[in-house]
């Protein structure tokens, strides 16, 4: 759905709560437990989850309307695939744009034909963030996706300069993660992630981890 007149579904509160939960999500190797945790998080957000959808090609569908949000997960998936599908739904809620009065996002196991460039970019960013979620390694994604980060402000004082610079960097990182394949690849390298962590610690020494 790409009409100019369409209104975006206000998901700010859901996103904020999701980020809050994701920060506390322990790294999980067991896919069954991983599914349970993500499912619980989604249900807390008011998303009705149905694992018994008779989907043939798609792994999952996220359907939103004024009547509520639903995550339909294909019944044919094994535990690992289901974990990935749930991660994509969570990633979609954080990254994706949903429109009013009704919208649906289809999650496919691999890259799929999409209509617009925006959808293609969104799909790619969702897929990459979902990988970080499945691996329980959120550091491999830009921090604004799962943490509250300092804002870029114009009130440039010696005291706020470092935090504001950091805010600008986060903004830049978030933007390119959503739009550039090369940046997503680069940002998901562990070495890059470690370097960014160090930069955050230098620019915001009081809260180096959570910024």
């Amino acid at each position, binding site marked *: *759905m790409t*009409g100019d007149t*369409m209104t975006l579904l206000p998901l700010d509160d859901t996103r904020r709560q999701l980020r809050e939960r994701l920060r506390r999500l322990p790294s999980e190797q067991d896919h*069954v437990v991983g*599914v*349970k945790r993500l*499912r619980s998080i989604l*249900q807390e957000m008011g998303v*009705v*989850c*149905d*694992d*018994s*959808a*008779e*989907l*043939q*090609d*798609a792994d999952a*569908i996220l*359907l939103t*309307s*004024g*009547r*509520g949000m*639903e995550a*339909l997960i294909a*019944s044919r*998936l*094994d*535990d690992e695939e*289901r974990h990935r599908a749930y991660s994509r739904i969570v990633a979609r809620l954080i990254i994706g744009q949903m*429109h*009013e*009065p*009704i*919208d*649906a996002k*289809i999650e496919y196991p691999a890259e799929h*034909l999409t*209509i617009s460039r925006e959808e293609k970019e969104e799909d790619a960013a969702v897929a990459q963030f979902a990988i970080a979620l499945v691996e329980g390694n959120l550091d491999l994604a830009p921090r604004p996706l799962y943490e509250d980060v300092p804002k870029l402000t114009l009130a440039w004082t010696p005291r706020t300069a470092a935090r504001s610079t950091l805010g600008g960097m986060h903004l830049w990182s978030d933007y390119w993660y959503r739009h550039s394949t090369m940046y997503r690849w680069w940002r998901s390298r562990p070495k890059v992630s470690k370097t960014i962590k160090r930069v955050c610690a230098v620019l915001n020494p009081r809260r180096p981890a959570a910024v």
Partner: protein
Amino acid sequence: MPERDEVQIARWDAIRSRVGDGLRQMRGRERSQAQLAYEMDELGFHISQSMVSRYEQGQGEVPLSLERMVGWALCCDALSSGHLHEMLELGGYSLPWTTGDMKQFDLLLRKFRAMSSPDQMVLRRRMLWHLLGVSPEPLATPPVMEHTR
């Protein structure tokens, strides 16, 4: 046939020809009666091709329910058409969506026409619930563990 009041029968007799016109217009020429009957059956409506034909000719004996009108329009991507609006008015039904909302429903349906048929059907079944204004019910027990291989 379920027992019906005379008043209900008389009312249906008075409107069924106009309802039939609307149904035919919604289906259009590019969709066959057989295709529509198949898609409605997949959605959960027990409607055969001959019933599609009878309804379109204004010969359906049982009044068309709200669910069937909406299901018909859903299968024909005609939710935003004036025909559905007119039929709902004739039937004394209303939906909690504006014409603009219905256009978005139609757009979404068309957008996902390229999906495989089973996947489309899953989406449409759920959209039908949203259209009818019923919130999706949470499942009582999460079936996560049941699907493990």
